[in-house]
């Protein structure tokens, strides 16, 4: 639109760090709390260097007390602070599930709008590093089931950089899921990149033949699949959900009305997953537009295995996405 602005080369992890730094500079009620966020620099090195810049009160290392410190984050938010609670991974968040569901998500409704918990909870999610069954879950779909919270899945550098501030300004609890395979991803970002919206899906690649709907760690695999499909004359449209709760139905249905075919790529286990919800919404709202059943590419219904070839087979991969897209077009 205007003259090209400067860009910087950075990683997803760097972008997230910048987002935290920026938020903490702009708003003194923002602070980061979680295991190993301070002295260790963050399990995924997201908060490296922040302790030196902001001090131990605002970059607060916690003991291994997920329920305790998540509840504390909720309480601090109820008393007017804007905490960023970092749960090391979604796998450990289960220990804090009671506080997230029974306090954060419910307090506004339950108190008749007197109290709310405007905190942000960040978690790493996903498989791919051979961390085996207990460290490889993708449970963002579960969380997207809960009314009272918002759930985000930044899949790009812009979103890693820009979603956090908007989430902190939101008067409701917001969960941000960062796929572990994305932290090392590098690319170019506008030097003045800032806050972005947190309630719209984005069309990452426009197409005419099939809508590939996805988020987070599966986004780049889906884009690769779209490139491969183009070589076979299949023009795929790729939708990045960005927000898992609320879902941007309008963007999804607009796409399906155009392509008449949809495949959803979701790293959760197939049964009862977010992809099932999206399938149902497409059936409810765009049934008459469809030329084929909606397809899904999800994780196999197994605990994620350790050995590399099995782990790769368990989660969505480019060949399965290509096959599902072709199946939707009736091409084996």
């Amino acid at each position: 639109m205007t003259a090209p602005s400067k860009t910087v080369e950075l990683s997803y992890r760097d972008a997230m760090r910048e987002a935290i730094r920026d938020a903490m500079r702009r708003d003194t009620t923002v602070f980061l709390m979680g295991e190993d966020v301070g002295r260790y620099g963050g399990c995924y090195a997201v908060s490296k260097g922040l302790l030196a810049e902001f001090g131990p009160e605002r970059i607060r290392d916690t003991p291994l007390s997920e329920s305790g410190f998540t509840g504390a984050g909720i309480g601090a938010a109820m008393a007017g602070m804007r905490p960023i609670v970092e749960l090391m991974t979604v796998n450990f968040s289960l220990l804090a599930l009671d506080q997230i569901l029974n306090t954060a998500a419910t307090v506004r409704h339950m108190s008749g709008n007197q109290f709310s918990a405007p905190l942000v909870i960040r978690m790493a999610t996903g498989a791919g590093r051979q961390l085996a069954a207990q460290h490889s879950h993708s449970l963002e779909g579960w969380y997207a089931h809960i009314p009272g919270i918002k759930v985000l899945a930044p899949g790009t550098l812009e979103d890693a950089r820009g979603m956090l501030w908007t989430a902190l300004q939101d008067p409701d609890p917001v969960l941000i899921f960062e796929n572990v395979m994305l932290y090392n991803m590098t690319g170019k970002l506008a030097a003045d990149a800032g806050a972005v919206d947190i309630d719209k899906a984005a069309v990452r690649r426009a197409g005419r033949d099939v809508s590939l709907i996805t988020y987070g760690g599966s986004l780049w695999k889906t884009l690769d699949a779209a490139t491969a499909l183009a070589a076979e004359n299949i023009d795929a449209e790729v939708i990045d959900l960005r927000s898992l709760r609320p879902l941007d139905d309008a963007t999804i249905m607009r796409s399906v009305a155009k392509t008449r075919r949809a495949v959803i790529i979701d790293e959760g286990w197939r049964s009862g997953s977010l992809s099932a919800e999206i399938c149902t919404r497409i059936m409810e709202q765009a049934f008459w537009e469809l030329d084929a059943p909606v397809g899904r590419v999800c994780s196999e219904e197994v605990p994620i295995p350790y050995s590399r070839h099995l782990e790769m087979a368990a989660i969505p991969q480019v060949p399965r996405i290509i096959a599902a897209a072709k199946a939707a077009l009736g091409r084996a």
Partner: protein
Amino acid sequence: MTAITDKPRLSRAHSLELLKQMIRIRRFEDKCAELYTQEKIRGFLHLYDGEEAVAVGVIPVLEPRDRIVATYREHGHALVRGVPMTTALAEMYGKQEGCSRGRGGSMHLFDRSTNFYGGNAIVGGGLPLSVGLALADRMRGENTVTACFFGEGAVAEGEFHESLNLAALWGLPVLFVCENNLYAMGTALAISESETDIQRKAACYRIASEAVDGMDVVAVEAAARRAVHAVRESGKPYFLECRTYRLRPHSMFDAQLYRDKAEVDAWRHKEPIVRFKGWLEANHMIHPDDLARMEAEVEAEVAEAVAFAERGTWEPVEQLTRFTYSDQAA
């Protein structure tokens, strides 16, 4: 414990006020029981009979800016704190004039204007919350105390230990008040805790603590004064174990198969209202007219609350999804 805070301030006026507050809670709970049998109040109802001295002894010592977190047995705490009896009862009826708009019911009384943070149905769920409230105050350098009430049953939950550890580690101004009524629903303390001397557990987290006779409103008030003072001065947490007893069943639908009537009766003879009244009478600090006046005032207040709740209206069904998220959302 300094000499200043040791001495209870027992003027006649203050004493009568203490007694009235306890009677007020007792009559309110009694009326709730009646209304529950008539199906005006539904769901679960947990009554405070026998434990009044704890709420009445601790809460008036706090300042208006201090914060209170309580449990599902919180009617007494709410009333003493200043939540109007009218809106509290309307809440239990489910009417939109209730303090939580009828959304919460008996277990979820909330009141922002008195810094009353509920009303929590998850045992132990309020402890991390109180840690967070205190954390916010500490980070802003404010001289506020957060009082967290919980039963001895919560002591078994992991969140209890996580919260005490965090409060001690970060030096947070939390007053932990454990209302030890010897039963977690139907499970006696002796069969659920390896260490039944609850206040000793606080020592493991290096939190100053004491135990007090929870049936003695004067002793509770004196201890609370010491405790609140300590928290405000040091900014560090304090643990107060109030040893008390629950005269009624855990909730309305409880056959009390886990304890025998003789035990309940024995405690009934030393419950706080009987005890304090007896002491006041023995010390000629109360006159039968005082008592009659108190009862009449309380009765009138209760009747007014019932009338208010009965008159109350139902929130329109169309509003069901409101206040799930902020109304600011487009």
